[in-house]
């Protein structure tokens, strides 16, 4: 039954931005509830304003609603005022489309793009009136599914989620719905067994983790009876390297799912009725990145790089404009400058849509002359800030993180940017990188001042340099997963140094709260035992942990203390090379051996070239060993050792329109 709309009407005037909670947006899809077989709620555990700009959710909304027997609706995390008002008025968490309480759905799919959403996940379950723990739910309750970037380490929320979608979701969600439909009315156990057969699905209940006396993972083992074999069992990914972790059995690791060819992008995008972050259309032009920055989780986890052809991007924009009326389109990728045909694309967009009063945003540009020209072409005279992300201020440290760009080049580009009319340059840096010394931090200030000096030559005192300094968080599945987080005390010292050095007109400094960083690092690298801590922190009132003014760090510290865990064990500890990590239940397709080699190269200050030209054998081609596509930026598969048994012609070349499910079985 629908929620009580009159009660809702009475609380809306008492909360901020009530438009977040009413739905009815143009292009939202309200299907006939009674006439639709399977009902999915896509839930985003952060506020509407952020959730509405999440492209992943928009993609899945389109994919699921395209199925005639399925409806997909949305729910976002109510802001603290609304959550309190809903509890007081006894209004359960509901979907924006049909205004149904979440327990009325068959499946609830949570999107977890970052780790600081875990307490919000629990809050949403609780607002819905659902038991928090998977073990306390049965076939009477919706299946709780989660996916998104943070779930490459699913363990800290493994207690609460029935099944995780690892990797690209476009195909997996359809398989999940079909598996659910086949087991509708069966026991929860049977439903989960069906889900576990879907490739890319991790069902934590079928695995147990054993720990060593020192708290590290001893082994991850299937619980008897052993998990069902995956469909076409012989295709189950085999260990890609000698297993560095214990007990390679029972279908582990779960190899992330990949769409070999990017499916057409959603074009019937929902238009928010209240202002949101990134209030514009978005077209993903490329997934993944070949640069190989060693700190970058997305760069490692999103391989292989897949490009969308120029023509398809143009067609998408052509379809989006009359369907939405958006006045701005963002072209999304991890590294716009690396899109092969970026010049052609920009030229074609200007030619086709130049008269349509359409703004284009092209984030993630590199610091080179070519990128400045691109930015100038799309800016049409408009000049907001120009953003560069050198990440480290010295060439030595940039070699460690594998982000090769010389300081001279950066200054030349800065000068060019100023000369072409921009007055503000934003610079992104990190502190706490492995191998960092005090002079590397000092150099951030030096570089920022040098850029300001360039600006002053052109614009005088109007030149502005905004410096954003984040603290490096070592992330799973990256070459730096063995590294410890910089201790809070020295982060404070480095931030104080930057505050002293970056004073004065035309310089602005932002940096991250060390408490936020510690929490992020702990959750990112946590194991399954952290579930108890997450639940306790939630019970103590922790919510919106990504919001500086909302985060209750005290609640978290109390939760850790009560559970008897030290956040430092997860965050600060440097790992030995042979340690088994909790996140090794998941494979991104990149060898652990490759990551370790990369880590060692970084310690020697050696760089690794962009892998578009030359394959370094990270493992991704081996992982999807019988597939390759022209749209991947991996060079054609080499016939060399390291790709065992693969002869020329072995690789199946995906054609457009073909999905992973169509892959011929040999």
């Amino acid at each position, binding site marked *: 039954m629908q929620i009580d709309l009159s009660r809702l009407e009475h609380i809306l005037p008492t909360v901020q931005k009530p438009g977040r909670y009413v739905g*009815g947006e143009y292009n939202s899809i309200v299907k006939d509830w009674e006439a639709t077989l399977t009902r999915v709620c896509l839930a985003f555990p952060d506020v509407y304003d952020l959730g509405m700009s999440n492209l992943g959710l928009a993609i899945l909304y389109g994919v699921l609603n395209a199925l005639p027997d399925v409806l997909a609706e949305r729910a976002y995390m109510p802001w603290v005022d609304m959550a309190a008002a809903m509890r007081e008025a006894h209004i359960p968490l509901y979907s924006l489309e049909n205004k149904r309480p979440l327990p009325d759905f068959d499946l609830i799919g949570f999107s977890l793009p970052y780790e600081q959403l875990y307490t919000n996940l629990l809050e949403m379950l609780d607002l819905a009136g659902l038991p928090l723990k998977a073990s306390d739910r049965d076939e009477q309750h919706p299946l709780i599914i989660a996916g998104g970037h943070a779930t490459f380490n699913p363990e800290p929320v493994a207690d609460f989620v029935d099944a995780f979608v690892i990797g690209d979701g476009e195909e997996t969600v359809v398989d999940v719905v079909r598996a659910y439909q086949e087991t509708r009315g069966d026991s929860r156990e049977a439903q989960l067994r069906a889900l576990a057969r879907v490739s890319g699905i991790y069902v934590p209940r079928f695995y147990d983790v054993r720990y060593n006396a020192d708290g590290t993972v001893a082994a991850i083992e299937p619980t008897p009876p052993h998990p069902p074999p995956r469909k076409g069992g012989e295709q189950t990914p085999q260990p890609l390297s000698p297993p560095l972790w214990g007990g390679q059995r029972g279908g582990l690791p779960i190899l992330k799912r990949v769409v070999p060819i990017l499916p057409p992008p959603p074009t019937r995008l929902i*238009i928010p*009725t209240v*202002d949101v972050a990134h209030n514009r259309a978005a077209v993903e032009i490329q997934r993944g990145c070949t640069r190989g920055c060693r700190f970058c989780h997305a760069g490692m986890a999103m391989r292989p790089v897949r490009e969308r052809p120029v023509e398809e991007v143009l067609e998408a924009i052509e379809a989006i404009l*009359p369907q939405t*009326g958006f006045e701005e389109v963002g072209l999304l990728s991890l590294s716009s400058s690396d899109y092969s045909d970026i010049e052609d694309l920009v030229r074609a967009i200007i030619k086709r849509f130049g008269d349509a009063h359409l703004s284009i945003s092209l984030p993630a540009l590199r610091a080179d002359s070519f990128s400045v020209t691109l930015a100038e072409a799309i800016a*049409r005279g*408009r000049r907001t800030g120009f953003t560069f992300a050198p990440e480290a201020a010295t060439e030595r440290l940039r070699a460690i993180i594998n982000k090769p760009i010389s300081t001279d080049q950066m200054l030349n580009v800065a000068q060019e940017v100023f000369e072409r009319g921009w007055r503000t340059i934003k610079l992104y840096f990190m502190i706490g990188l492995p191998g960092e010394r005090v002079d590397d931090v000092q150099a951030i200030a030096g570089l920022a001042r040098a850029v300001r000096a360039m600006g002053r030559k052109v614009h005088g005192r109007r030149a502005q340099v905004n410096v954003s300094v984040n603290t490096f968080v070592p992330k799973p599945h990256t070459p730096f997963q063995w590294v410890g987080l910089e201790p809070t005390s020295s982060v404070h010292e480095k931030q104080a140094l930057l505050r002293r050095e970056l004073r004065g007109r035309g310089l602005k400094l932002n940096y991250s709260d060390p408490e936020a960083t510690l929490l992020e690092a702990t959750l990112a690298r946590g194991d399954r035992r952290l579930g108890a801590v997450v639940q306790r922190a939630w019970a103590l009132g922790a919510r919106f942990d990504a919001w500086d003014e909302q985060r209750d760090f005290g609640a978290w510290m109390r939760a850790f203390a009560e559970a008897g865990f030290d956040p430092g064990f997860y965050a600060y500890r440097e790992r030995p090379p042979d340690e088994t990590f909790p996140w090794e239940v998941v494979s991104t397709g990149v060898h652990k051996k490759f990551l370790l080699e990369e880590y060692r190269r970084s310690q020697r200050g050696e760089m690794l070239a962009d892998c578009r030209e030359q394959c370094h054998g990270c493992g991704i081609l081996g992982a999807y060993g019988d597939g390759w596509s022209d749209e991947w930026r991996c060079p054609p598969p080499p016939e060399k050792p390291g790709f065992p048994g693969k002869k020329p012609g072995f690789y199946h070349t995906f054609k457009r329109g073909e999905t992973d499910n169509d892959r011929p079985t040999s």
Partner: protein
Amino acid sequence: MAQRNGSDVMRLRITFSKGGPLTYTSHLDLARAWERSLRRAGIPLAYSGGFNPRPKLQLAAALPLGHTGEAEWLDVWLEEPMPVKDFARALVPLLPDGLVISQVHQVRLKEPALQTQIASAEYRVTVEWHPELVEGWDEPVEQVEARIKRMLAAAELPHEWRGRRYDLRPLIERLWLERRPELVEGQVGGGEVVLGMQLAARAGATARPEAVLDVLGMGEAFARYHRRRLTAAAG
């Protein structure tokens, strides 16, 4: 405010209602919803000049968040002439839920800005109350009318809004009881009363219907605000 810059050849005035899911859309976001609807319909909008050209649109008077409106006005400037009928036919099917067009007509390009033409606004305010919420409202329902009379007879109605003290009385043009209090089923001792009010809506002299309720002693009650019409200044 839109300036004539030679690129606009036609000015159209849309009379529309705002409600439904757009009830909680702010003035600024409403302008954006109109802009996007007009763009979907492929209307040849005239744009302002400069580095960041904006379509030339004017809403008559901001409708506060949570209020609905029945006869709101929007002026749209076009860079190419088009028959009013074609304009409406293109636009109507592409409006979001909550916007309904009741009329479109052409106005002279040189007419002054729409905001400066508005003199007053008429509201229908439906108030729900529970006796414990509203001071003195457990008295007989006939007293509602008496309160209104007393209010209209007052020479001054001092009121404070966002820390600013002002006299509300001259801003109230008319105030009347539209429907006598009715008991709402299931609400013991509570009821619903509908008030009509016509309030000044000139630049620098605008009254909010919430202020009237406040002075009536109903400020704490839940109310639905509906703007029935805007009245243009004479001449």
